[in-house]
C-alpha cells in the first residue's frame, strides 16, 4: 500500500493527466452534439457489426424451422390461388339475328387433362352438363380441329381427340371430300391420314385440308396441310399424309361447338339409315 502510494506520488503528473483528461473528455462528449454523435455512431457501428456476425451464424441453426414455416406458407398460398378453384362461369354470347339464323354456338373450355402418346388419346375439359355440353358435339381450338365430346359429367367432359383410332372426321381438300383417320401406320401426334380421295384428283404438297361441313363441324375449319401424297399399289384411292395444325401437346383452351340444327338434321336423316 505504501509502495503504491509512493508510485502514484512519484508519477503524479501522469495520473493527474489521466484524471483531468477523462473529465474533459466526458464533458466534451456529453455537451457537444458533434462529438457525441461520432462517439455513438462508432460504437453503434461496432455493436451492429458484432450483432450481424452473430446473426449470420445463428440463422443456420433455425434453418430447418424456417423451411417448415415457408413450406406451410406455400401450401396456404396455393390454397388461395385461382387454379385451386373450379371456374364456374361460362361466357356465351348469342345475337338474335332474323336474317341469318345461327347454326353454331361456341362454349370456351379449359383443358384440364390431356394425352398425346397413347393409341387412343382423350382430352378432359372443365365444362360439363352444367354448362350445357352434350355428348357428340365437336371441339376445335384456335388452330384447328380437336375432337368430339365423348362423355359428359356434371362439371367435366371428355373429348375423343383426333388422335384416336376410332375418330373419323369428314375433311375436304380442294373440294373433294375425304375422311380423316389417325394412328393406323404411325402414332406421331402431328401426322394424320386422309382417306377416300380418289386418285384422279390432283393433290399437291402444302394444300390446305379443312372440315367439310357434313359432320359436327362448320365447314372450312382448318385441319392441317398435305405433306405427302402417294399411290398405294393397286388402290383406287390416294394415300395422303397430313400435318395437323393443332399441336395437341400444347393444347390449353378449346371451343365446344353446339350445332343448333343437328337435331333436325338427324331426325330427317334417320329414316334413311338401314335398320
Amino acid at each position, binding site marked *: 500500500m505504501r509502495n503504491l502510494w509512493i508510485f502514484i506520488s512519484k508519477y503524479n503528473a501522469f495520473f493527474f493527466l489521466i484524471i483531468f483528461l477523462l*473529465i*474533459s473528455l466526458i464533458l466534451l462528449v*456529453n455537451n457537444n452534439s458533434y462529438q457525441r454523435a461520432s462517439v455513438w455512431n462508432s460504437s453503434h457501428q461496432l455493436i451492429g457489426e458484432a450483432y450481424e456476425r452473430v446473426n449470420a451464424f445463428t440463422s443456420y441453426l433455425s434453418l430447418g424451422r424456417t423451411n417448415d414455416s415457408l413450406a406451410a406458407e406455400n401450401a396456404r398460398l396455393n390454397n388461395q390461388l385461382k387454379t385451386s378453384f373450379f371456374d364456374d362461369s361460362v361466357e356465351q354470347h348469342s345475337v338474335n339475328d332474323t336474317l341469318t339464323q345461327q347454326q353454331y354456338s361456341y362454349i370456351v373450355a379449359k383443358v384440364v387433362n390431356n394425352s398425346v402418346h397413347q393409341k387412343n388419346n382423350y382430352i378432359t375439359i372443365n365444362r360439363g352438363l352444367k354448362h350445357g355440353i352434350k355428348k357428340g358435339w365437336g371441339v376445335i381450338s384456335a388452330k384447328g380441329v380437336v375432337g368430339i365430346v365423348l362423355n359428359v359429367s356434371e362439371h367435366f367432359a371428355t373429348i375423343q381427340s383426333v388422335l384416336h383410332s376410332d375418330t373419323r372426321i369428314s375433311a375436304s381438300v380442294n373440294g373433294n371430300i375425304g375422311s380423316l383417320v389417325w394412328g393406323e401406320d404411325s402414332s406421331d401426334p402431328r401426322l394424320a391420314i386422309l382417306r377416300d380421295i380418289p386418285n384422279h384428283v390432283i393433290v399437291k404438297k402444302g394444300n390446305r385440308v379443312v372440315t367439310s361441313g357434313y359432320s359436327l363441324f362448320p365447314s372450312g375449319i382448318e385441319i392441317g396441310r398435305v405433306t405427302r401424297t402417294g399411290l398405294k399399289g393397286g388402290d383406287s384411292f390416294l394415300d395422303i399424309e397430313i400435318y395437323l395444325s393443332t399441336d395437341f401437346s400444347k393444347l390449353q383452351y378449346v371451343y365446344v361447338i353446339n350445332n343448333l340444327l343437328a337435331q333436325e338434321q338427324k331426325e330427317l336423316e334417320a329414316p334413311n339409315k338401314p335398320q
Partner: protein
Amino acid sequence: MGRVILINTFRFILLICLQVFLLKNIGYYNLAIPFLYILFILLLPFKIPNGLLFLLSFLTGLTVDVFYDTLGLNAAACTVLAFVRIVFISVTVQREGFDNEPDPSLGIMGLRWFIFYAIILTFFHHLVLFSFETFRFTEFGYILIRSILSSLFTVLLMILAEFMFFRKKVR
C-alpha cells in the same frame, strides 16, 4: 507569494479577455487560429505543485470553452499541455537551481529556450485541440497542417507579448 498570485490573476484575466473578445475573431481560413491564452499556463511559476498546475490548466481551458461553446475541448487540450509542460521542464531545467520562484519567462530563461519551450508546448496543445475538434482519424493530414500553422501564429503572438510586457523584468 501574494505578488505572484496577483500577477498571475491579472495575467489570467487579461489573456482570457484578449482571447475571447479579440483573437476569437482572428484567423486565417480556419487553418491558422491563435490561442494566446495558453501563455498563462506557460508562465506559471516553476515551483507550482503538479496538482495545482493541472487544476489551473483545466479551469483555464474550461473558462475558454464556456466562451467558445465547446465544453471540454480546450480543457482537454490544456490538461495535456500541463503534462507536457511538467515533462519538458523536468527534462531541460534543474529545479534545485532556483530559489526565488522565477517564472519560465522570456526575460529569465533566454530567447532560445523560451522559443523552444513555447513551440513544443503550443504544438501539443493545438494537436490535441484540433484532434478532438475533428474527432476523426481519417483527416490526420488536415489536423497536422492546422496544428503547425496555428502553432506558428500563436508562438509569434506569444513572443510579441513577451517583448511588449515582460522584457523590463530583466533589468
